[in-house]
Each structure stands twice: as structure tokens, then as C-alpha cells.
């Protein structure tokens, strides 16, 4: 029917309901408390971080035992470099958790409830990022420190400097937590857990794998850039002054590069979350 809608005249006035619960102004701190409850109350957090700890400790110890049993020559490298392999594999767990922190909300429809409770989307993204960053930074740093101490005990620390210790523990913790934030931003942009995890693993491994097969003379420069700046190359810089290549970034420069990329991705994630319908 195409008739005009019929509308009714004014209605009687009612006494509006007022709640006995006192309303208190909510701020970022409340969003942080909320996100902390969320991240600690799902199994995926325990699983991903648990597997990461097992990988870091297990592979780190195996490497140290192997080196000490064979009396292998460390070729001037610090004993701490033995921690690298465990962290590289463990980083995939952190990436998974970073993606799940936000993409699982899109998957379950929880994001609608979350944004209904907190219409400031920037606050939601910021609270998620802070909680996730602090949790992964703490877990990674503590585990890396534990592994480093065990390895130094098994192999002997030699001439390792304080600066090297700092990079292999706090530095690695920061790097992995920022990498996780990048995954969180990708999760917010793609809004699909499996898709975002695939993208992140591709981002971490493809440049290095692709570089291995670039035999052509004309691609030599591209190959060098990929080798210098792939995520494993950036990570190895925390352990060894030599790195995978001689020309790549060293130590804290790696962290700066990754932080820059992550900041851009998070800005994009904020823009997308703010503009999109959910």
C-alpha cells in the first residue's frame, strides 16, 4: 500500500524511570579494566602465550645443550644468540594472539556489544593495544631473560656486555610486543581471524623466502633489501652485531623501524574502525 503513514496525536506523559545505581563517569581506565578482563578470560590467551613460553624455553635449552655438549666455537658471538630461534617461532604465537584480540570480537559479534558499551572507538582500540602490549611485553621479556640466564649457565657467558643483555631481554620483549601490535592492527583492518593470521605469517616469512630464490642479477638490490629488512632479520639484530647480512639495521634501529610501521598500521586501523559500520 502506498497510503501515507498515519500518526497519532500527543501521548500522555509518564514518569521516567530513574535507576538507583549511581552513574559514574567512565574513562580510559575503565576501558583498560574491561579489556584486561576480556584477555584473561579466554583460553586462546593462555594457549598462545603458553605455547610461546614452551617454544622459547625448550628450543633455547636444546640449543644451549647442543653447543655445550659439542664444544662448538661461538665464533665470537655472544651466547645470547642461542635464544633467537625460540623467539622467532614464539613470535608466531604472539602474532596469533594479537590478531585474535580484536578479530575474534568481529567473528563473534562481540564488537557490537563492546562498541555499544563504549561508543568511543578510539578508546576501545587504545585500551586493547595497551593491555595486549603490556601483557606480551612482560611475558616475552621475563621468558627471554630466563632463557638467557639458563643458556649463560650452560655454555658460559664469556664477554657478554650489559648492553647485549638488555637487547636480548627487554629489547626482544619490546620488539615482539610491537610485532604483536602490528598483528592487532592487521586484525582490526581485516576483521577475520584466519585471514589476518595468514597475512601476518606471510608478512613475516615471505620476504626472506622470496629473497632466497632471487638468483637473477637484475634483482640483486631487491634481494638485499628483503634480506636486510625482513622481520627475522630485524629480530636477529638484537642478538648479533653482524646480523643476517652486514648491511642491515642494527639493534635498536630495528625496533624503531618496526615501531614506525606499526604506528602507521594502528593509525589505519583506527581510521577504519571509526569509519566502518560494525
Amino acid at each position, binding site marked *: *500500500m*502506498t497510503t501515507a*503513514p*498515519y*500518526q*497519532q496525536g500527543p*501521548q500522555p506523559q*509518564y*514518569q*521516567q*524511570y*530513574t*535507576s*538507583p*545505581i549511581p*552513574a*559514574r*563517569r*567512565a574513562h580510559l581506565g*575503565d*576501558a583498560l*579494566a*574491561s*579489556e584486561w*578482563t*576480556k584477555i584473561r*578470560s*579466554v*583460553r*586462546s590467551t593462555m594457549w598462545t602465550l603458553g605455547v610461546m613460553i614452551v617454544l622459547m624455553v625448550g628450543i633455547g635449552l636444546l640449543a644451549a645443550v647442543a653447543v655445550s655438549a659439542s664444544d662448538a666455537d661461538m665464533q665470537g658471538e655472544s651466547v645470547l644468540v642461542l635464544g633467537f630461534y625460540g623467539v622467532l617461532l614464539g613470535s608466531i604465537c604472539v602474532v596469533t594472539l594479537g590478531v585474535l584480540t580484536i578479530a*575474534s*570480537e568481529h567473528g*563473534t*559479534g*562481540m564488537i*557490537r*556489544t*563492546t*562498541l*555499544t*558499551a*563504549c*561508543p*568511543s572507538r578510539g578508546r576501545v582500540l587504545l585500551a586493547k593495544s595497551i593491555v595486549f602490549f603490556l601483557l606480551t611485553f612482560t611475558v616475552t621479556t621475563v621468558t627471554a631473560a630466563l632463557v638467557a640466564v639458563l643458556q649463560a649457565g650452560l655454555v658460559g657467558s664469556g664477554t657478554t656486555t650489559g648492553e647485549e643483555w638488555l637487547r636480548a631481554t627487554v629489547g626482544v620483549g619490546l620488539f615482539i610486543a610491537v610485532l604483536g601490535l602490528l598483528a592487532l592492527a592487521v586484525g582490526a583492518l581485516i576483521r577475520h581471524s584466519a585471514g589476518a593470521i595468514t597475512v601476518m605469517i606471510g608478512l613475516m616469512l615471505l620476504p626472506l623466502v622470496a629473497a632466497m630464490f632471487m638468483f637473477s642479477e637484475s634483482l640483486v638490490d631487491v634481494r638485499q633489501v628483503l634480506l636486510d629488512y625482513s622481520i627475522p632479520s630485524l629480530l636477529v639484530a638484537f642478538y648479533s652485531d653482524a646480523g643476517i647480512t652486514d648491511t642491515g639495521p642494527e639493534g635498536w634501529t630495528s625496533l624503531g623501524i618496526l615501531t614506525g610501521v606499526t604506528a602507521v598500521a594502528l593509525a589505519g586501523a583506527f581510521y577504519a574502525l571509526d*569509519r566502518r*559500520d*560494525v
Partner: protein
Amino acid sequence: MIELEGLTKRFGTKTAVDHLSFQVRPGQVTGFLGPNGAGKSTTMRMVLGLDHPTSGTARIDGKHYGELDEPLTYIGALLEAGGLHGGRSAYNNLLCLAQSNRIPERRVAEVLDLVGLSAVARKKPKGFSMGMGQRLGIAAALLGDPQILMFDEPVNGLDPEGIHWIRNLMKALAAEGRTIFVSSHLMSEMALTADHLIVIGRGKLLADTSMADFIHQNSRSYVRVRSPQPEQLRDALHSSGMTVAEEGNGTLEIDGATTEEVGELAGRHGIVLHELSAQRASLEEAFMRMTAAAVEYHAHDANAPQWAPKGV
């Protein structure tokens, strides 16, 4: 109070919500009715600030949703698709919501008790039945003890006991002076719950009226009469100026007449009657007539009845 002004949402070339303007007032249950795809959920999502309107505004007590500081204490919503994390316990699902709005933690236990889920507070919602999931969603909506409650298709998939429970809950909440806005595609359900009715079709407002007015204006009443002398009866009715429709087996239907008129007329002409009864066409029928032009997807069945059987 929820106020919509020229609210419009386009997805590409398709207009899902088309210049909707209406108010949802406190102290009553307002039914939001329309066929599937009419734009009910999109409208509700825009009220909650989840979807951005193409044009127009939706306000809650004069404010945009985004301007509410602790929105859960103003408005609680039950959205169609769950909206909670299946792997997080019922208690923690509600706790993280409460924390984000500075609602005291004791409210979590209170609302779980209110919806009858205290026994499964520590269980995960993915193992819940549809009815339990719906109750948990309602608990989340009630968490901030809000003045306004919005339910999107709350009775979908519920058993009769659950439907009965939600119906009474909505009425009780409205009686406390709250604004209740509930969507449905079932007229029969709304007839039992709503005091006020807003009908949309293809995103356009079709009716904004009190339930009583809607019933009064839209339910066709007629008299059904059965006689072994149908020809004589029909002639008698015709000669007294009544409109008669023949239904076979000697049954006649007379629009706009009373049983008294028909009975007395038959008596005067000495016609035997086997049945004489007052009938009302269903509200479902009225609703379907109103939205017939606005139904998104018709079933392609030439023999399908134009609308549902009578008898609501």
C-alpha cells in the same frame, strides 16, 4: 525517549532505511514491526551508533549515542546476532561490559539472577541453548539498569515458556516507566505485548499508532451465517442492502453487519439458520495487507494464500 529525524541509510544503490522519523516514548512497549529486510535491525544499529546514517539523526534523550558517557546506564540493547563471546564465561562476559561503564560488579550477579542464569554463571555461552543465550543477552541489556531498552527480535527461536517470560518482562519494565522498543516480524506477538506500534516496510514508515487504534482500524469484522436455505437468505440480505459473500456449503459472510441484524432478518423471513457468528479478521492479515507492497522477497507460489490463515 528515542527520537529519529529523517534517518536514512543507503548501501550502494539500495536504500535500507528511508527518511524515518518517529519517537519512542517512555512508559510503554513500542513494537517495531516490518517484514524481513524492512530495515528494522539497521535502524536499531544506527540508534546505537554502530552504523553511520547516510543522513538524518537518531537521538537518545536529545543526545547522539556517541555523546553518552556511560551508555549502558541510558540504554540497554539486545541485538539479533548474539553479541557475546562464546568462549568466555557468562559472568566474565557481563563483567567486562560492567567495567567499561563503571557499573558496580555486584550488578553482574544481580542481573544473572534476574534472568535465572545464576547456576550457569561460570559456564561458557557456546554451550547454552538458544533460550539461555537470549536470557544472557537480556542480562547484558539490563546491566546498567537503563531507562531505555531495545530488543531486536527477542522471541526468535524461543520456546513458549521463554516467549511468555520475555513478554512479561517487557511489560514489567515498561510499567516502571522505562522506554521499551522491541522489533518483530510477527504481528501476533506484538498484539500481545505492544502498547504502541511503528510499522515500516522497505525502510519507509507505514504506520505510527497506538495498538488499540491499529486493531480498531484494521480488523475487518463480519458475520458468518450458515443456512439450509442459502438462496432465500441471500435474497433477503440483499434486499435489506447488505453486502454478501458466498463461501460455499450454504455459508454466507456479511461485512459490517451485526449478528442481531442478521438473526432478526432471518427470523422475519422464516429462514432456518444452522450457524450465526461474529467474526474478526486477524491483525496478521491487516499487517500483511499494509506491508504487501513492501515485502522484500515473495515466495513464487501461485497457489500460496495471500496472507496467513485467520484466527489471531
